[in-house]
């Protein structure tokens, strides 16, 4: 019994002794070394069904189908990898294909230990370097985080400001502006009425003197009517309206005149001239005559003269027709105005004030000259005084200021609304890029990119902001900026930038 116990003890000891001093094969981690214990001098491949002599472990020949017998060489293609202990840094598993290939992969050089390549142990340096890189990276991250926080703050602050503007400040301002506008408009009307009266008073004296100088009183009624019609239609309905106003002002009691008829007459299609058939006939005759002139040899004798006459007649017809139309229009105007019933002095007043309002001094002089052959050539066109009332000017300026402010506010609202609909990132962190531009020189060209704005190559527009863009499905939505619809000069497609 004792002897048996000793035997067992001895056996145990032998087994333990083996456990005490296991030779960990090269390339095996401490955690895996128990897998390389021998059983009766044999090693069982990890696959569980191949047994090989223990001497074949790490003998630089691949025996196990799963490669487990060569943890320390590159003999197996399917090995689990090589375990670098890497004291001073941290252990690492590398591919078996790296073992003994002449390149130091483990920082302790253990992968090349048995293969003649001298590797320097760089684990300590690697640890130091990694720590440096880690802290540099951490700092970089920190800086990035801080920058992002600032950007988010700026973006959020801007959103608050924008909402304050859009929903409070601007509506208030608009109400003020509307009030001011109405007020200045009313004031302007009053002031301009006064201004006009003052002007009339000044101009009236000049008018009286000039009426004598130009001897308008000597023009017949028919002549005066013709002058009136000419002036009243010089600017079509605009001038006709002025005359209607003057009529109300200068000849009270003429309310029976139909404004609509007057304006309709003023709008008659005088500019279109002669009817189409007459114009076509003239064209045709002209062509025939020109052709005949170009090649007289083909024309029968006497035919040439006939063609010329026919052309001239057609031309006369056209001119005649235009004259008649103009005449009819003036006639229509005068009759709508019931001008023939006006007293001569009223006619003269209308003509003179109309000339002032329409600033047609030269036209009037020409029209009178055409009717009074004895008029002195020294007579000049009527002088029109300048009169601006200071208060009226002031009010006009203020009204303009208000209108300009309106325009500015409208632009500002547009800008705010654009911002409101723009995508500045999840937390508005990209707002800080709004209004900034970035330049880069590349291959001799200056590129300029303004997020939320445009992109340029030199002076050429190569794209307008088209939002952020995720390059691929696994990238952030804000990976890239896109600028589309740039200049297509020299290209078949408009330029685009990403």
């Amino acid at each position, binding site marked *: 019994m004792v002897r048996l116990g000793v035997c067992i003890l001895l056996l145990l000891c032998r087994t333990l002794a083996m456990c005490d001093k296991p030779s960990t094969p090269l390339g095996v981690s401490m955690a895996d070394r128990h897998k390389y214990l021998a059983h009766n001098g044999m090693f069982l491949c990890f696959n569980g069904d191949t047994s090989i002599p223990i001497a074949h472990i790490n*003998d*630089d*020949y691949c*025996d196990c189908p799963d490669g487990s017998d060569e943890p320390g060489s*590159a*003999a197996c*293609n399917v090995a689990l990898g090589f375990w670098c202990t890497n004291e001073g840094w941290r252990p690492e598993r590398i*591919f*078996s*294909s*790296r073992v*003994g*290939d*002449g*390149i130091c992969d483990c920082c302790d050089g253990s992968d090349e230990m048995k*293969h*003649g390549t001298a590797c320097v142990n760089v684990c300590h340096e690697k640890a130091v370097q990694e720590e440096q890189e880690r802290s540099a990276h951490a700092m970089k991250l920190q800086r990035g985080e801080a920058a992002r926080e600032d950007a988010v703050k700026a973006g959020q602050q801007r959103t608050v400001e924008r909402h304050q503007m859009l929903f409070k400040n601007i509506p208030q301002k608009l109400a003020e502006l509307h009030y001011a506008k109405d007020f200045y408009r009313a004031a302007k009307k009053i002031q301009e009425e006064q201004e006009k009266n003052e002007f009339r008073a000044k101009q009236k004296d000049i008018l009286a003197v000039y009426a004598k100088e130009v001897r308008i009183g000597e023009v017949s009624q028919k002549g005066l009517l013709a002058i009136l019609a000419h002036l009243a239609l010089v600017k079509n309905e605009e001038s006709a309206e002025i005359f209607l106003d003057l009529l109300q002002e200068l000849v009270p009691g003429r309310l029976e005149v139909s404004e609509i008829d007057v304006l309709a007459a003023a709008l008659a299609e005088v500019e279109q001239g002669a009817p189409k058939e007459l114009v076509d006939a003239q064209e045709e005759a002209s062509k025939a005559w020109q052709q005949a002139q170009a090649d007289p040899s083909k024309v029968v004798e006497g035919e040439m003269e006939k063609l010329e006459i026919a052309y001239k007649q057609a031309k006369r017809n056209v001119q005649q027709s235009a004259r008649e139309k103009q005449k009819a229009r003036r006639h229509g105007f005068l009759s709508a105005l019931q001008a023939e019933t006006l007293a001569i002095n009223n006619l003269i007043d209308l003509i003179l004030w109309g000339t002032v309002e329409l600033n047609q001094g030269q036209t009037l002089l020409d029209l009178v000259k055409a009717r009074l052959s004895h008029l002195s050539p020294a007579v000049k066109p009527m002088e029109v005084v300048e009169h601006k009332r200071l208060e009226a000017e002031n009010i006009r300026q203020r009204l303009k200021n208000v209108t300009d402010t309106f325009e500015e506010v409208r632009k500002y609202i547009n800008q705010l609304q654009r911002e409101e609909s723009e995508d500045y990132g999840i937390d508005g962190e990209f707002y800080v890029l709004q209004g900034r531009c970035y330049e*880069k020189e*590349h*291959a*001799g060209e200056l590129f300029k990119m303004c997020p939320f704005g445009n992109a340029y190559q030199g002076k050429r527009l190569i794209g307008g902001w088209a939002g952020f863009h995720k390059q691929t499905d696994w990238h952030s939505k804000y990976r890239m900026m896109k600028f589309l619809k740039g200049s297509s000069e020299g290209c078949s497609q408009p330029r685009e930038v990403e």
Partner: protein
Amino acid sequence: FFFAMVFRLDTTMWCTLLLFLIPICSSRWTSGNIDSRNQEAVVTSYDFGIWSFTLEDKAYRVKDAVVASPLNKFKEMTDGDHKVFEHGSLGNSIAASVLKVQQPGNTNVELHVNHQLGIAVSVNDKAPENAEVGATFTFPGAKGIYGIPERAVDLALKSGHKYRLWNLDVFRYQLEDTKGIYGTIPYLMAHSGSKTVGMLWNNAGDTTVGIDYNDAGIQATWTSLSGSIEIFFFPGPTPMDVLRQMAYLTGKQYFPPLFSMGYHQCRWNYRSEEDTLSVDEGFDTHDIPYDVIWLDIEHTDGKRYFTWDSHNFPNPELMQEKIAAKGRKMVTITDPHIKRAAGYHIFDEATANGYFVKNPQGTADYEGHCWPGTSSWLDFTNPTVRDWYATMFKYDKYKGSTPILYTWIDMNEPSVFNSHEVTMDINAQHHGGVAHKDVHNQYGFYQTMATYAGQMLRSQGPPHDTTTRPFLLSRSFFTGTQRYGAIWTGDNEAKWSHLEKATPMLLTMSLSALSFVGADVGGFFDNPPEELLVRWYQAAAYTPFFRGHAHLETKRREPWLFGEENTRLIRNAIRSRYRVLPYIYTTFYKSSQEGLSVISPLFFHWPADEKLFTLQDQFMLGNAVLVRPIASPRSDNHGNIEVYLPGEPGEKWYDFNDGTPYAAPQSHVIVCDDNKIPVFQRPGTIVPLRERARRSTTAMRNDPFTLQIALDSKGQAAGSLYLDDTHSHKFQNGAFVHRAFHFAGGRLTASEYTVTTQYTTPAAPVTEQFSTNTWFERIRIYGLTSKPNEIYLEHGDDNSFNYGGLQGVDAQSIKERKQLTFEFIDGVLTIRKPVAYLMMDWVITIA
């Protein structure tokens, strides 16, 4: 079998062509040399029964394509109106008589050649001014005709088709289009089953070849719109003879450095140093081997080649140092168009020295548009320009370049965006007043010549006193380009049909003596379906040049971007390439010495088997490995792939990876999962392998080898393994080891490889030596019928090799007979770890 030719310079034919090409012809008509043309027929002989026929005149004659020296001109005698050419040194070979009536405008030349092949040639030259040249050749008895790359058509040229030979940058080139694409070799090989002959039409102008199969055989009608008549004839008699004769005449494949046979990772474009290094890192993270990372045009400063974009590539040397630390290389692109920009050193120097091609008037530099905008083109036809260009690659000249930087030359047809047919004005003037139309097809060839010279030049002198073997990739090529670089099939598409067509395209280039060829994995344009990408990697792993590339506008497609399973499949495909690299390297070496191609059509190896004459979905890698790419989706093929295995009845082929035997000669349906394409080892061959996964060729340099043996029906096999320092020219001085392996009578013998053929380049005196401790870790034998009793190794004790090279090996103790362990499972014998040394003779006996 014999061939006969009829030259017909027949006026009606010219008129047909003139209708289309009036400007070209009329300019020649006005050149004033018409009546003074005085043709002299010259017949010249070369080694191996090659001979040439030339009509000497003042038209442009192609230079630099042919490198072999003539033996001598045929002896010329006059016999009345006949000229008689006799050649005595070749015994019964060639005697010719020429009838030549020298009347300007009405020259009749008949050439009767009495030759053992029975060649009869008659020349009937009636072209009014001989501005253009043409001839018709008949190959009586021929059943297949091959050659005239480059276009995306079938291997066997088709009857009734007219093929145009004019190098063009064709946007999205169409399959089956008979017009040419980027490169040209005006060479044909006609094959009857028992006899093969070949011819080279040495003309670089706009050329058409009409093919016509008729009762008499196959007729080929050549016409060229410029240049002169210079024809070389290769007597064969086998396809391999014709190819080796062509390689002898125009130069054998240069021997590329090992890294360039690894996997290349390219994309238009890796955008920055960070991007480039992260792709490099990606291969390591996913344990996928690769050797070279490529930078396309965007890496430059505004498409100024030989410069760097300072923003994205601020520190190119440091980037290359990081790549070099893992034993890898880098390639940058240097296209032939030069941006017209003052201050750009290439432009300034070329302008100052007049190194650009000139406009048709010769008054100013020719200008056109390409990637950089307005550009001019370097005149590589001028030897002075080539010498100058070579200096641009010197490290002090090409800022940011380091010794691991190699070169890609693209757009060298040349591609001119704003010009007719997207190429140079045919009347642009080259050196010596030569019109572009005369040298067009050689433009890219001359750039490869200058670039090769640049890489040679930069590695001379300290601190790089070992001349490194160049590596360059060119898109355009001509006869002789094999002397300088690799060629790829250009801008293909991510379609199954383009994967399918890659095989005949690569075979056509290979049989035209251009061996270092490949098609871009995945297809350049568009995004490949994942299954296509995987199948493409699996096929391209066995082609001479192996590169993944993609268009700027495609999705990223680095091998690990398509999920774990596809990453695994692609990893396996690329590793399968690295596994066979010892065999590929040996095959390249043999190609460089003997003139055979690295891959070849099956009829090269079984010339009499008519089933092979049009077979183009299988190819041989070297003489031992048969590959059948899968170019259709699983939804079509259901994993059942038909393969035809030729050979003698009673022989068996073996699945390359698991040793399953397949009987010859017959078709088999091979069941292929996603990880497998049919690859077989030929009976009677021994293939050297390196079976350890590594990250690059450099990382494999000390790994042990495996020999994989496929026995023939007599229980025999043979093969060889070549090794050197993988990158220098020292092998030319004897610094290499080339071992022969023979298996017969149960004995595997390793000895020095001494086989030479009449075509083998004579060895230079040995002045340098190479040594290595590399050993064999495994012998795998397919085809044994029973388990051996014992196996033992005996190292020899002769001193024919360098024991001194075996560091730390006890030469005496290893000579003792050593029992080897082995296993025999499913007919495959694996001998465990013999530790037989590559540098030593040894015998393994299987008893």
